[in-house]
């Protein structure tokens, strides 16, 4: 059974028709990637799922429950967590405080401690920097923090918006390794990327978004071999 189901979603910014009836299905335990160029509507898709934007038409359901009726902060309690584009760390809060905010929806102290230990195991660097103010971290460290913060609510599905943006190749590799690790530990992942090659390498399946429409969907393996994808997103002729 698919845990996340997006059907015929139309999202607008005023008069701008940003998503033109998209359909996406995500199965439990998968890594699904959504690739597409700048302005294709990737961020809009994630913001629609997380409740920051409300579509004018269509449905979004989690485990069969319609979640459009919930506000963004309520959706976190349902098990969806998002790592926003550009990381969005709270620059004036410390690393520890950022992680605590990630666990805002959790009331059990033991659970928060457990999640925090998990994050520190995934990103030992964050443990070293835990008392540091997040604004003073490097870009890579901020991405680790944003990812760790997203895990603090122990989500069933983690939405990640371009985690590789602006990072050096070594760090991209590290982040993607961690994404796989997180997935192995049982979290379903929806990964939005412009770095299509990396994304298709770790994903099970992928969707290709172009100006608000899904133009292709297939296994990652097949997408990598698809001439359209190779030409437009993998830079091959």
């Amino acid at each position, binding site marked *: 059974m698919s845990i996340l189901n997006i059907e015929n979603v139309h999202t607008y910014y005023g008069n701008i028709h940003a998503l033109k009836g998209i359909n996406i299905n995500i199965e439990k335990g998968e890594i699904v990637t959504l690739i597409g160029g700048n302005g294709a509507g990737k961020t809009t898709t994630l913001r629609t799922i*997380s*409740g*920051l934007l409300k579509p004018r038409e269509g449905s979004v359901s989690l485990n069969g429950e319609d979640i459009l009726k919930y*506000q*963004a*902060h*309520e959706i*976190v*309690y349902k098990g969806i*967590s*998002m790592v*926003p584009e550009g990381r*969005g760390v*709270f*620059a*004036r*809060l410390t690393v520890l*405080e950022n992680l*605590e*905010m*990630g666990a*805002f*929806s959790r009331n059990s102290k033991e659970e928060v401690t457990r999640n925090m230990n998990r994050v520190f195991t995934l990103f030992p660097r964050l443990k070293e920097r835990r008392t540091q103010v997040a604004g003073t971290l490097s870009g890579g460290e901020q991405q680790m923090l944003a990812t760790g*913060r997203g895990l603090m*609510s122990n989500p069933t599905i983690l939405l990640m918006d371009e985690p590789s943006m602006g990072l050096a190749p070594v760090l991209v590799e590290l982040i993607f390794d961690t994404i796989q690790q997180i997935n192995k530990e049982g979290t379903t992942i929806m990964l939005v990327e412009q770095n299509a090659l990396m994304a298709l390498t770790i994903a099970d399946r992928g969707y290709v978004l172009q100006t608000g429409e899904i133009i292709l969907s297939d296994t990652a393996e097949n997408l990598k071999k698809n001439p359209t994808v190779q030409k437009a997103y993998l830079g091959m002729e």
Partner: protein
Amino acid sequence: MRTSFGERLLDLAVNGFLWGFRILIVVIVVLGTFLTIRAGKYTSEQWIDFVVFGISQGSIYALIALGYTMVYGILRMINFAHGEIFMSGAFGGYFIATWLTGIGFMDKYPVFGLIISMMFGMLVSTLIALLVERIAYRPLRGAPRLVPLISAIGASFFLQYTFRGFFGPGVYAYPSMKALDGEWIFFGIGILKVQIVVTIAAVVMMSILYSIVMFTKIGKAMRAVSENKDVAALMGIDVNRIIVTTFALGAAMAGAAGVLYALTYRQVNFFTGFTPGIKAFTAAVLGGIGNIPGAMVGGLVLGIVESVGPALFLDSIGIPRPYQLKDAIAYIMLVMILLFRPSGILGERVSKKA
């Protein structure tokens, strides 16, 4: 290119004026200070009095300033009705203090009486602030920044004249508390009991607020929301609830300040909130609007400068009644800060970027 000569001339004139203004202020301050100290007109005991009064007054400004700064931090708006929130707290405190005095409780248990009066003032302020937020601000969330500002000014007048309607334009005299009459002597220097009690109460309130903001889950969420509302919502934080909490906390501080202010001046009327409101706004800007420690520092600095300033800067340069210019000093400080360091003492230089 054609207008460049005219523009340059205008630029020069404006810059010249600003420099002249700066220099004038510096000359007045330096010369005034020098002449006053040489003249030796005031005893050191008097100076200490000025400073102590400045601290107690400043700690009240600081308490009020916290509300301006916290609401600004979270909504980027100036809550111009905050002075009236403060006034409503002073009124609330007045009624309960009068009643407690009437039944003899205040004389028997002055500390409890004071605490109860403050709590009641805080309660009244908080309720009124929540109403104002719900009615005058929340429906305008997302509107251009000028719109809630105008609504705030409207709310301010509305509250003033509502209080005037209910309680008339007259002045209500606060009951006198025997326990607060007279002085305590420290190292041979007498200091008014009221001023000490006011300062201590204000410092306690500020410490409570600061601990809430720094160390509690809700306080951290307040700071998160003030940085980025969308991302805060993604954490599961109910942004509206945090905004309401911020208004409530700021109003509670203003309500406490209202009671303390009324204890100092022994009176309250519908217009009581106006001047302290602007002063506290000045203090918030002075410390860097949006910055919580800044509001506290700004309040103290303003209180002290305003109290010491007339004697120190103005008395010996031939100004006939320097104490009448106390408010002018505060407003000149506001103008200077806005002109020369809009980010305030502790603020980051954000206004330049915006």
